[in-house]
């Protein structure tokens, strides 16, 4: 049987972190009373016009720069037409012809199979990033055969990040999305919380034999978590292979991932290929961005966006932060990944290091093996840790000064975890865990043990 090459591309929608919407002044907020965050424009009432939110443009430029894109100094807005109850205007304002950023790349890492915990770096090309409106939310009431529509989300700014089909499996797709999520959170351009719908992923999947052209692709939607992303992609790859090997064909269709059954199913309501009749948005002139060279003199700064100004103020991206951690503290690359993967863990580690004489290479073991496993066992975030960085540093100092043994330290940590407010020193004294340093005392104990043995 000839081998199969799976091909995976992704379309990721990230909700922009802003106070107000992309083209209107209504608030952006999760879980508000239905239709309370809706302006006349969002409801598509006649006579309303879109007004572009500056913050949304800045968020898209930041993201484009962080993903090594070329920022288009002139980008355009278009209308994408389709009918659905949660799209009151009957079209979505998007950037189909000339998006704000193109031709970037994202590097991500995977653990290799071997137990050494080594990591391999991969790259996925970013085709483009475009600004577009989010739609409202439909709540399907099957019992009463109706749909309830909440327009709070209608008009919220989105950045659609299109990743080329450079990935080959669920693990790669999940790792790429995870890295993008970290980047967005570091930039602050999106909070990218998948559970709140701030980061939505659609996967394009196909398979082919080496040397042959790409196979027919399917689009997989309704993936609600990182875990399900890998599962959905791998399931679809398997499904396509099985279908083709049994003589069937793959339809160019849209499928939904059913998390309960762990499989993809064809989506209803998607009759054939859609004709979106793209047309230029007549109410918006082109979006012009400037850099230091092209910036006109005597200009109102509120009306102008300077790409170079934004570039200079980009924070350290996760990859840079990891390198710095490895260089500064001598920890392994895999450690730096784990530190950044858990919100607040890197800061916790650095605070402990500052307060203890123990070498960072030893501290990292306590952070990753002991602290982190406690947190995971109890499903706590770093912020919720009953053991603060001060307490842990205190404990590690006792260990470093050889006042307690390593085994004793673990027992103290277990006690500290109860969060009863005791200091490490208090616990050590309570449980009599001090290492005996006194030579004479040690001799006496040893002698007593020997004497006891002789009697028997």
């Amino acid at each position, binding site marked *: 049987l000839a081998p199969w090459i799976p091909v995976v591309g992704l379309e990721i929608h990230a909700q922009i972190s802003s106070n107000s919407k992309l083209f209107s002044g209504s*608030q952006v907020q999760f879980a508000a*009373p239905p239709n309370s965050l809706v302006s006349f424009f969002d409801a598509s009432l006649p006579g309303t016009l879109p007004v572009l939110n500056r913050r949304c443009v800045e968020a898209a430029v930041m993201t484009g720069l962080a993903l090594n894109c070329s920022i288009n100094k002139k980008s355009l807005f278009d209308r994408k037409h389709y009918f659905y109850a949660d799209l009151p205007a009957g079209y979505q304002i998007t950037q189909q012809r000339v998006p704000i950023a193109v031709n970037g790349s994202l590097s991500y890492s995977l653990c290799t199979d071997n137990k050494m915990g080594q990591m391999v770096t991969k790259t996925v090309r970013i085709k483009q990033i475009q600004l577009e409106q989010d739609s409202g939310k439909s709540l399907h009431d099957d019992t009463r*055969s*109706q749909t309830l529509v909440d327009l709070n989300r209608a008009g919220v700014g989105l950045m659609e990040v299109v990743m080329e089909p450079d990935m080959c499996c669920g693990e790669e797709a999940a790792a790429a999305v995870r890295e993008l999520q970290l980047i967005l959170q570091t930039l602050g351009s999106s909070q990218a919380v998948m559970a709140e719908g701030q980061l939505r992923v659609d996967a394009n999947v196909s398979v082919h034999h080496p040397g042959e052209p790409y196979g027919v692709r399917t689009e997989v939607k309704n993936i609600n978590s990182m875990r399900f992303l890998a599962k959905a992609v791998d399931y679809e790859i398997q499904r396509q292979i099985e279908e083709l090997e049994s003589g069937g064909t793959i339809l160019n269709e849209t499928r939904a991932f059913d998390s309960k059954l762990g499989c993809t199913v064809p989506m209803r*309501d998607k009759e054939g290929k859609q004709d979106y*009749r793209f047309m230029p948005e007549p109410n918006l002139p082109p979006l012009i961005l400037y850099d230091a060279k092209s910036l006109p003199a005597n200009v109102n700064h509120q009306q102008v*966006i300077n790409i170079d100004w934004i570039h200079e103020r980009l924070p350290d991206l996760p990859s840079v932060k990891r390198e710095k951690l490895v260089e500064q503290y001598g920890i392994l690359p895999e450690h730096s990944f784990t530190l950044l993967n858990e919100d607040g863990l890197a800061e916790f580690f650095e605070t402990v290091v500052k307060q203890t004489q123990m070498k960072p290479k030893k501290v990292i073991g306590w952070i990753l093996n002991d602290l982190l496993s406690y947190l995971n066992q109890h499903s706590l975030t770093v912020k919720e840790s009953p053991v603060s960085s001060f307490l842990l540093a205190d404990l590690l100092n006792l260990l470093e000064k050889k006042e307690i043994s390593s085994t004793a330290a673990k027992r103290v940590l277990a006690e500290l975890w109860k969060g009863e407010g005791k200091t490490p020193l208090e616990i050590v004294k309570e449980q009599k865990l001090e290492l005996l340093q006194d030579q004479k005392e040690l001799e006496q104990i040893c002698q007593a043990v020997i004497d006891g043995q002789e009697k028997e």
Partner: protein
Amino acid sequence: EKVSVEVLDHLEHLALVDFRDSEGVERLQKAIQFADQLHEVNTDGVEPMDSVLEDRCLYLREDDVTEGNCIKELLENAREKVEEYFVAPPGNIPLPKLEEQDTFLQGS
């Protein structure tokens, strides 16, 4: 050159327009002919204009919350509502296919 029945049917589905009768279709044909006059202009080497606003500045708004909180007015026009939600049918109700319709287009 006439617009085919398939294209007319496709347009009716996409835009929910109703060409209604031969007069409606004729009007469309004339509109297309009128616009086609643009092809007579030599546009070699000329950047297409897609908006008369192309030289205007795109106004950028500050990211402040200035609108919203008008449920009452928004729901006023809704034929049906349930607890401040708009009510819609369970899914799109597609126009019947050409073969199933009893319209002018079928006869032409």
